[in-house]
């Protein structure tokens, strides 16, 4: 059986198997190679640029966690946080994502997004839970840059189109914040992008960005003023109060307008025009009035409530404004010059030719037909206005110049406020103390008299005779009235008058005789019925 077995085995043909082409043993090395390759790719080829962001304080930043975003898309991660060599700054090493090199140029900006409450907005609330992150904006420069200074505040968005950069300078204290809008006729046309205190020139310098579609609004005749949304002034022309919408009231900003006949004297720097930023609209408008026909009015003695912006009227119609009052060449003129005070006025030539308006007034002055007077414009504020008069008779004054401006002569007029001042002065001269004392004593006497009359009338009320007496007195009163009328018709020397005088004397005598009786009845009404018990005392010498 074992041979059979061997035979059987001996007859079996061997099957040749083909060896396997890929051994599973290589799976693991291959996988390792792929991973290695991926890692190499990821760490070499698929790596974005590494940049450094310098900031003063790395508050809220965490290495490996803090993200860098552009338009809310993650474009990088903070890889490392370290201090600068001199320990004055913190340096963030950020690993940007691949293909973000185009975002990084000289004008790219980085800032930290965290909860921030501004004038009208609250931003960055999402970072309360997620933590702060770094936001970036793409600059419009072509030069690659990998080191940036982080901004303290978010920059104003100037990416939309190519607008216009303007520069403002102000001598007033800072009223405008970075980010405040630039407004034209109520529309936001740009933003303040930068503010700086120029210590050397004692100025505040601003730069503003005007959006592309509005950039043509800015020209040489543009005037800028800061704007608070609420405008209140109590001036010579009365109370002026205006409100804008709530947003503008809260936000403020810079407003501009274009004035005809005005050309800015501002210099142009390498980047554009530098405009003056006026304190308010009034100051801005007064500045432009200097480019309209100007004249000088010499006010006598005192300014009489004439101030900047006071009206200049002709036939009650406003034709101009006071530009400066007083308009001295220098401050010493107040003490050196005569009693007259120069007031510079401007005639509003809007819509008309400058030369036409100027020539019209100068011609009238030379022909001695034009003069002015001061009139009251507001009873509330006591402000006055300058009224122009064209009159051949009244305005016969010589043509004169003051600081090269034609002088409009003034004729005396008394404004309502002056009249009120005069009346008040007269009232002030009255001795109210003495008057009050005399009135007081008179009233006391009257009060006593009234009390006595009350007592008498109260005690006489129930007496028949007295009632009759009342009737008699009433009749007498009527008679006196009639007599009074009669005396109006007759003179004091007439017979009738004398008779009446006599009658009145008699009546007076009767009244005097009645007086003790009335007093007696007042004291003791019973005497009418029961008679008087006490008779006059007897006089006996030596008693």
């Amino acid at each position, binding site marked *: 059986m074992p041979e059979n077995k061997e035979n059987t085995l001996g007859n079996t043909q061997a099957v040749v198997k083909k060896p396997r082409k890929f051994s599973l043993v290589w799976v693991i090395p291959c996988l390792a190679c792929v991973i290695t390759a991926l890692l190499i790719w990821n760490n070499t080829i698929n790596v974005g640029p590494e940049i450094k962001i310098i900031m003063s304080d790395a508050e809220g930043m965490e290495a490996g966690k803090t993200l860098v975003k552009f338009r809310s898309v993650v474009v990088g991660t903070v890889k490392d946080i370290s201090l600068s060599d001199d320990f004055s700054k913190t340096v963030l090493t950020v690993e940007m994502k691949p293909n973000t090199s185009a975002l990084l140029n000289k004008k790219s900006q980085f800032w930290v997004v965290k909860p921030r409450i501004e004038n009208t907005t609250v931003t960055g609330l999402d970072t309360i839970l997620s933590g702060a992150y770094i936001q970036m904006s793409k600059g419009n420069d072509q030069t690659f840059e990998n080191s940036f200074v982080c901004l303290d505040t978010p920059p104003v968005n100037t990416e939309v189109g190519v607008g216009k950069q303007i520069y403002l300078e102000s001598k007033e204290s800072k009223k405008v914040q970075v980010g405040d809008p630039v407004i034209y006729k109520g529309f936001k046309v740009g933003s303040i992008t930068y503010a700086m205190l120029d210590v050397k020139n004692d100025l505040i310098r601003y730069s503003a960005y005007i959006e592309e579609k509005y950039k043509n609004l800015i020209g040489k005749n543009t005037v800028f003023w800061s704007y608070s949304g609420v405008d209140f002034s109590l001036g010579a022309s009365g109370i002026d109060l205006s409100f804008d919408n709530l947003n503008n009231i809260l936000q403020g900003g810079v407003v501009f307008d274009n004035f005809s006949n005005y050309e800015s004297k501002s210099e142009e720097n390498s980047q554009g025009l530098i405009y003056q930023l006026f304190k308010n609209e009034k100051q801005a408008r007064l500045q432009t009035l200097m480019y309209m026909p100007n004249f000088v009015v010499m006010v006598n003695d005192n300014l009489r409530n004439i101030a900047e912006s006071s009206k200049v009227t002709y036939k009650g119609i406003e034709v101009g404004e006071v530009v400066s009052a007083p308009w001295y060449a220098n401050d010493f003129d107040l003490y050196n010059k005569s009693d007259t005070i120069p007031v510079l006025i401007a005639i509003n030539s809007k819509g008309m030719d400058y030369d036409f308006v100027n020539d019209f007034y100068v011609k009238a002055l030379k022909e001695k037909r034009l003069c002015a007077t001061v009139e009251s414009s507001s009873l509330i504020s006591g402000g006055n206005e300058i009224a122009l008069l064209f009159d051949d008779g009244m305005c016969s004054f010589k043509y004169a110049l003051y600081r090269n401006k034609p002088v409009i002569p003034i004729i005396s007029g008394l404004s309502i406020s002056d009249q009120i001042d005069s009346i008040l002065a007269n009232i002030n001269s009255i001795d109210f103390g003495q008057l009050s004392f005399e009135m007081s004593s008179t009233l006391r006497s009257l009060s006593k008299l009234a009390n006595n009359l009350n007592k008498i009338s109260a005690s006489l009320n129930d007496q028949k005779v007295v009632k009759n007496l009342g009737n008699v007195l009433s009749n007498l009163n009527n008679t006196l009235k009639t007599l009074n009328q009669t005396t109006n018709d007759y003179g004091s020397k007439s017979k009738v008058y004398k008779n009446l005088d006599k009658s009145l004397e008699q009546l007076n005598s009767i009244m005097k*005789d009645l007086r003790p009786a009335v007093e007696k009845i007042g004291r003791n009404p019973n005497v009418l019925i029961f*008679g008087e018990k006490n008779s*006059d005392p*007897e*006089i*006996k*010498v030596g008693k």
Partner: protein
Amino acid sequence: MKSLALVILATSLLTGCFSNSVRQQEEFDSYTLIDDLDPKVLAAKEHIDVNLKSPLNKGSIVIKTSDVALRVTNSHKWAQSLDEQLQLLSASVLSKYALNPRISYEINVLQFYGSTNGKVNISLSCKALNANKTIFVNSYVYEGFQSDDGYEALVLKLKEGYISIMENIAYDVLAIR
């Protein structure tokens, strides 16, 4: 009968009440101080102003009945107002002296009355003015007793006393000159 008796009783009571009121009507006497004056003094009275303190201005003679009581009489009245009478009386006396006619006088009378025992009191103050400028101020008092009982003697004594005061005033004013 009862009603008749009531009527009679009521009538009697009423009659009893009115019997006291039906009395003889008294007539009062009027007294004057200026009956004997020269009418010329009427023109000179203008520069004399006399003011009477109460109750002298009540139109009746005043009698002092105790140290603190004055009685205005009912039946003894002044024929004219007392201030006017005194004004004329003053003018009459002063006109007898060669006084500056531009001087005016303000006389304030405090006492001008008698008393039940016949004593007469007059007191007054006098201010003399020349062109509204005070040149002289003085007070005067007169006391005397009337010679007879009654009001006529009182009036005569009052007149006599007042004239003597005015004469003193005239002397004083003359002394200023």
